[in-house]
């Protein structure tokens, strides 16, 4: 409770409270007045902020969960182990919030169970639905040891420990499918999206950018919790993670430019239009500036620059997903969509819920300094 006296925390608590109250009011409107009462969506623009941010960004930013697992448990680079638990927690909370957010966006949320019994394997959305269900279950099992430790349920803990490696492998495969399938969703819109974003490579772009953003989130959170819990950040680990992130960003960028050239759409980069400007902003903020910083060793070992570049990568990632869902379509179809106050307030409420849950769980459970724990696999 000692944090309570800090004015800074009180300020953010006030902001958080206002956001939650507004969000709850919007929730009431959403479930009494329908989507028309709360969103700026329409027949020509049926996917907006909630799909673009709550779903696409929510899942993408949870990617740290599977990338860090791969690094620590599959590639067995044990030095990164202290980062695994916060990353799994982020991923688990991220997925829970995605499901929660989906309840607002779906027209008939009470029909969601039909996804389990009514199958259409030709649909990418079917793949997405099953990845969400299965990977959330995997994340639950990956996170369970944290709770079981606290409860001292050793028997159950040892059972989960036995299956932990197959579980991690399953999690990595499901994440690969899920992250890329969110890009595949848009493959069916060849005539509705600007060629700056539309490409047969969209699943690859979504996968690579999610890996980069997932790493950046791990860094970002390490700084946030270091500040909240007044502990030091593991700079030697985090700067390496920063470098990994930069490498994935550059790979993604190179494929994008080559693909734009091969498809004959590179001229779109030299137009003066709003969409071109937004494309440049996305690339500069999310790729060129942060990877430029992170490639310089003297910079990435400094707290300030590492923090700045991680923040930029996350911001650029959000920018990209919003561009794919909103800019690419609205510019091609000459439509205007801007999220309503209610849409924004619900999205902000989900972000606050996520931060609050992360804060509380890291406070009461053993998330950081994992190296002291033996039964963690």
């Amino acid at each position, binding site marked *: 409770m000692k944090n309570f006296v800090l004015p800074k925390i009180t300020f953010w608590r006030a902001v958080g409270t206002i956001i939650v109250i507004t969000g709850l009011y919007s929730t009431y409107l959403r479930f009494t007045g329908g989507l028309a009462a709360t969103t700026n969506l329409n*027949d020509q623009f049926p996917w907006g902020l909630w799909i673009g941010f709550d779903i696409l960004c929510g899942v993408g930013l949870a990617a740290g969960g599977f990338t860090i697992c791969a690094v620590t448990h599959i590639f067995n680079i*044990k030095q990164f182990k202290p980062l695994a638990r916060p990353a799994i927690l982020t991923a688990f909370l991220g997925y829970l919030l995605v499901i929660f957010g989906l309840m607002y966006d779906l*027209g*008939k949320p009470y029909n969601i169970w039909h996804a389990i019994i009514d199958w259409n394997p*030709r*649909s990418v959305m079917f793949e997405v639905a099953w990845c969400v269900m299965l990977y959330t279950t995997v994340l639950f099992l990956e996170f369970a040891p944290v709770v079981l430790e606290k409860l001292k349920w050793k028997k159950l803990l040892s059972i989960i420990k036995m299956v932990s490696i197959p579980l991690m*492998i399953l999690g990595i495969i499901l994440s690969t499918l899920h992250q890329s399938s969110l890009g595949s969703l848009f493959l069916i819109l060849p005539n*509705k999206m600007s060629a700056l974003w539309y490409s047969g490579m969209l*699943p690859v772009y979504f996968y690579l950018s999610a890996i980069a953003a997932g790493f950046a989130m791990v860094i970002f959170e390490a700084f946030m919790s270091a500040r909240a819990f007044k502990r030091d950040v593991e700079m030697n680990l985090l700067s390496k993670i920063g470098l990994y992130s930069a490498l994935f960003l550059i790979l993604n960028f190179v494929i994008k430019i080559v693909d734009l050239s091969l498809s004959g759409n590179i001229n779109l980069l030299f137009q003066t239009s709003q969409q071109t400007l937004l494309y440049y902003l996305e690339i500069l903020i999310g790729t060129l500036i942060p990877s430029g910083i992170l490639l310089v060793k003297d910079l990435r070992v400094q707290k300030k620059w590492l923090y700045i570049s991680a923040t930029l990568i996350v911001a650029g990632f959000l920018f990209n997903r919003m561009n794919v869902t909103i800019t690419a379509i609205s510019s091609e179809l000459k439509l205007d969509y801007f999220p309503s106050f209610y849409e924004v307030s619900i999205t902000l409420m989900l972000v606050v819920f996520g931060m609050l849950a992360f804060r509380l769980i890291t406070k009461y459970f053993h998330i950081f300094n994992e190296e002291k724990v033996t039964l963690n696999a």
Partner: protein
Amino acid sequence: MIKQKAILFDATLCVGCGECYNACKEQNKLPATNDDFLKDHLGANTYTVIEEYGDYYTRKLCMHCVEPTCVSVCPVGAFTKTELGPVLYNPDICLGCRYCMQSCPHKIPRYEWTKNNPRVRKCVMCYDKISKGESTACADACPAEATIFGDRDELIKIAKQRIAESPDSYYPEIYGLNEAGGTSVLILSPVPFDQLGFAANLPKEPLGNYTMRALDKIPSVVGVGGVFLTGMYWLTKRKNEIAKEENDTIKSDGKKI
């Protein structure tokens, strides 16, 4: 094998009288949405409209694709392409994800945005009526034979014949012959189709193929991924063990000396 039914709309014959619009409303028991049918738009209670483009009128309605995008994208299979031709929707299993609306190349499906139990709404090609061997309400109502109903094969023949007989009156193509894999609503027009507001940049293949190319890779991702990750795990673990053993050997050797 049942012959697929279809609608042929000929914009050179349409006089813009609005009989199809009224007949559709009546047949589907849809409430009135606009006093002037020419100012109305497709909506949750309007399955077909007549649009004015300069000297010409055209109709807009669900195209009932041969390989529909909505059928391919719906996660729960709420859309079905019937053998007879119409594309039907089942609101009872629909989740409301609106992927059908997002992906429809003809921008047809409409949503009940104001409702708490919203359905997707669109023309059903008078499925009940045509199952009994009748024709659609709009075709019945058309006084100018601008909208006619019949077997898809037959209508394609008629359309080709019309173009051949009076090439000056027609833009020399049938819209719907193979747009996004073809449709069960065929359009004839005096001008290029984009001038009547039809999507002109559609590929010839069904759009479902675009996502199938990604979905087809799932088994290999799972297979290769599984083998690679298991192999990697085993290799790196072994490597660490060997490194540890060597370390121990060096240490114990050191002790001996």
